[in-house]
């Protein structure tokens, strides 16, 4: 990463906004081609995501998933590790919650079960991150390959267990029994309704708060702790890390544990927050989208919150689009997401040269006045 010659606000605000607008512009053209009005579509999408009853709740619910998986990718990236395994780690996290909730649910107080279940999700996710981490550190297997493979393994394990040992009796779907009463995180609409506000039903639950706390913790870890310092030093330069005596192998394993744990906690939102039982495929691609979220959020928790919000709004608003327009299908929404990833990820620096020219020229013109 070279130090940019642009002012900070350009780097952090202007460029992402420009990239987003470009993506929306191109998406608009495509919507126009298939014969719908792009402006109407945009307004339906925005209303769906933020205005309609329950819309904001759903948006923030999806946001929560993206924050967890985005943070997971970001933490690993600070050690220059590309964790593609968010999907599998989240699935294993779900399994962790299920095991804790089902086995302890009827013996311990609800609060303690919930607490242990959250720990279980992080622990199982962490284990699923540590194994590829270990293989990379000690055996030199590339983490991208192993984490991808571990996604498949996790998914297969879940199918095996949910259609076998853990399958609820007397029914035909691959899922566990429901958790005992109360083993669930409070949903916001219930809380608000009790307080007397009329809020639309949505799955938004306390996990959102946990996600925000994780953002703060990740920020502290990366930029305010000795461990974070070592992670970043190792990420930037393996040689410097060896020189300083950090043992890159240990750093890789620890980082993958933290990263996997964060991805695993995504299951808290889906399983403990909404489903209250373990089902198949609850990760539905959030782990992969986390990569785009981290990329767009520049691996910084604040950036990740905004990027997650964007993707959450796209998810929810996209569902609304699908619902309202005949010509626009779910795939169309996926395409818009793809465009955003393309313009803010792959082409993230497309506008840099032009902006640099613009700003440096201004600077040169200013200089004689200042001297």
């Amino acid at each position, binding site marked *: 990463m070279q*130090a940019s010659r642009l002012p900070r606000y350009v780097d952090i605000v202007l460029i992402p906004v420009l990239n987003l607008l470009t993506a929306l512009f191109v998406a608009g053209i495509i919507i126009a081609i298939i014969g719908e009005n792009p402006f109407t579509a945009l307004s339906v999408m925005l209303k769906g995501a933020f205005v309609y009853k329950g819309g904001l709740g759903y948006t923030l619910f999806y946001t929560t998933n993206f924050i967890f998986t985005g943070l997971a990718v970001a933490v690993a990236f600070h050690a220059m590790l590309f964790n593609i395994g968010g999907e599998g780690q989240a699935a294993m996290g779900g399994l962790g919650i299920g095991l804790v909730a089902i086995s302890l649910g009827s013996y311990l107080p609800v609060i303690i079960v919930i607490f242990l279940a959250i720990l279980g999700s992080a622990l199982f996710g962490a284990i699923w991150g540590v194994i590829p981490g270990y293989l990379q550190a000690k055996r030199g297997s590339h983490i991208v390959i192993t984490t991808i493979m571990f996604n498949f393994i996790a998914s297969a394990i879940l199918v095996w267990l949910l259609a076998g040992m853990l399958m609820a009796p007397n029914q035909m779907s691959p899922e566990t029994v429901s958790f005992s009463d109360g083993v669930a995180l409070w949903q916001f609409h219930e809380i608000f309704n009790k307080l007397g506000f009329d809020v639309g039903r949505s799955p938004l639950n306390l996990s959102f708060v946990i996600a925000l706390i994780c953002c703060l913790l990740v920020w502290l870890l990366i930029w305010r*702790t*000795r461990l974070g*310092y070592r992670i*970043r*030093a190792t990420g930037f330069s393996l040689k410097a890390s060896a*020189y300083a005596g950090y*043992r890159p192998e240990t750093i890789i394993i620890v980082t993958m544990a933290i990263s996997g744990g964060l991805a695993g906690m995504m299951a808290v939102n889906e399983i403990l927050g909404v489903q209250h039982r373990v089902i198949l495929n609850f990760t539905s691609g959030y782990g992969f989208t986390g990569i785009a979220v981290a990329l767009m959020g520049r691996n910084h928790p604040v950036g990740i919150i905004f990027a997650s919000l964007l993707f959450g709004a796209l998810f929810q608003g996209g569902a609304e689009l699908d619902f309202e327009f005949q010509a626009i299908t779910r795939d169309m929404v996926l395409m818009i997401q793809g465009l955003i990833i393309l313009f803010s990820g792959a082409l993230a620096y497309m506008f840099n040269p032009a902006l640099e020219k613009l700003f440096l020229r201004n*600077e040169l013109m200013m200089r004689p006045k200042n001297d």
Partner: protein
Amino acid sequence: MNIENSKQNGDFKSPFAVEIKNINKSFGPVQANKEISLNVSGGTIHGIIGENGAGKSTLMSILYGFYQPDSGEIKVHGKLAYFKQPSDALRLGIGMVHQHFMLVPNFTALENIVLGAEGKTGLYKGLQNARKKLEKLKQAYGLEVELDSLTENLPVGIQQRIEILKALYRGARVLILDEPTGVLTPLETEQLFEILLALKSEGVTILLITHKLHEIMAITDEVSVMRQGKMVANTLTKHTSPEMLAEQMVGRSVLVNNKYELQSIGKVALSVEQLGVVDKRGFDSLKNATFDLHAGEILGIAGIAGNGQSELLSVLSGITQPSRGFFKIEEHLFDAKKNPNPRLMRQLGVSHVPEDRHSEGLVLQFQAFESVILGYENNKKLGNGFFTNPDTIQAYCSQLQEAFDVRPQNPRLYSSQFSGGNQQKLVLSREISSTPKILLVGQPTRGVDIGAIEFIHKTLIGMRNNGCAILLVSVELEEILSLSDRILVMNSGEIMGIVPKITATKAMLGKMMAGIPIEEAKEDKK
């Protein structure tokens, strides 16, 4: 050689092979070349000398077509030339020999030379033609190379010849050599100079970029001095002197070769016994090193780069593990079983200024205040418990920057944004502020400007006078000679001998560096 070219250019009959007029080149706000003009007479060796960052490399990159100037013009043999890419420059007969060779290690010499000029379909015929042409070139200039050897098996001196042949094969009549002697033994350097003289006698024009004053004096006909992006002097070599050139390079008078007083030596701080390192390829990179390092002395390690000095530094600093033998610091003994590690070594009072400040000594993407705690981030003073306090660290960094005159004095600047000398001062400040008992120093002044060199040398001497034991590895013989109390010479992983500074001569050390044992090297002297 390239008859077409000489014919084409023959019509113009300019006395200058290359004329550069009023070249300007900026990188963002930094102006690397300001109004540079330079005339290079055909068939001469023209030296270009200047500190790091003076703009030599930029100018040469413009000349061989890698960069385009913002303004100004270049004439080759009297003819105006525009280069969009290096191949354009090559077409007009300008070839570059890079400091870091651009060779494919597992190609043969011949394959490397024809790379990119293989001719059309079918390699065989092209290679046969090339072989004939190369035999002629080899004979004409004494460029002896075994064309069928694998490049990676050849010594660096020969690899350099391959680079030169590459340029000549493509018809170069003007050769630019960027710091060509940096990696060579004294003998190889001599051979290179013979080749350069042979090339010159055949009418090839040579531009020699270097920062070594004695090379300029030894071989060039004319010399140009650059300073801060400007051309400050242009003279015939016989009309100048090393002192004058040094003054022109820095813009004030400096002591080129400061001799420092000898100091009385204290007790043994580090003792090394039969120490050996086997690297990953199973190659003995350090063999049976045995020596003592005393408090209050500087033990200089002389040798051509890559003869085991780096391995010695990295095993003593705890980065790599010894394979054989042991070393001892006070009562602590480290061998293949009881491994050292950098953290433990720091606790024992061993500091290490690594050879490569870009990849080891600093994290370039870190801000200065982050880089100055590399390896010391555990220090209790830098925060409480698990957390670090950026304000404390920044204050600490400012303090170090002030003490070591690091410019600009800004802890928030990225490590990559400092000049070579200031980066080195940052590393040095970090390693010295822990008040080490033993200081391991690798290439302290590589790529560092003369002003900073003086400062770094004085700092090292100051440390020695305070009783620190210093192990100094440097490929600059001058530096070793001026700083060390004793000089240890290494060749292919082995210690050739230890010479007290008083009896050491350059000639003798040079022979030992080339692998001649100390006894013979001494006898030869007489």
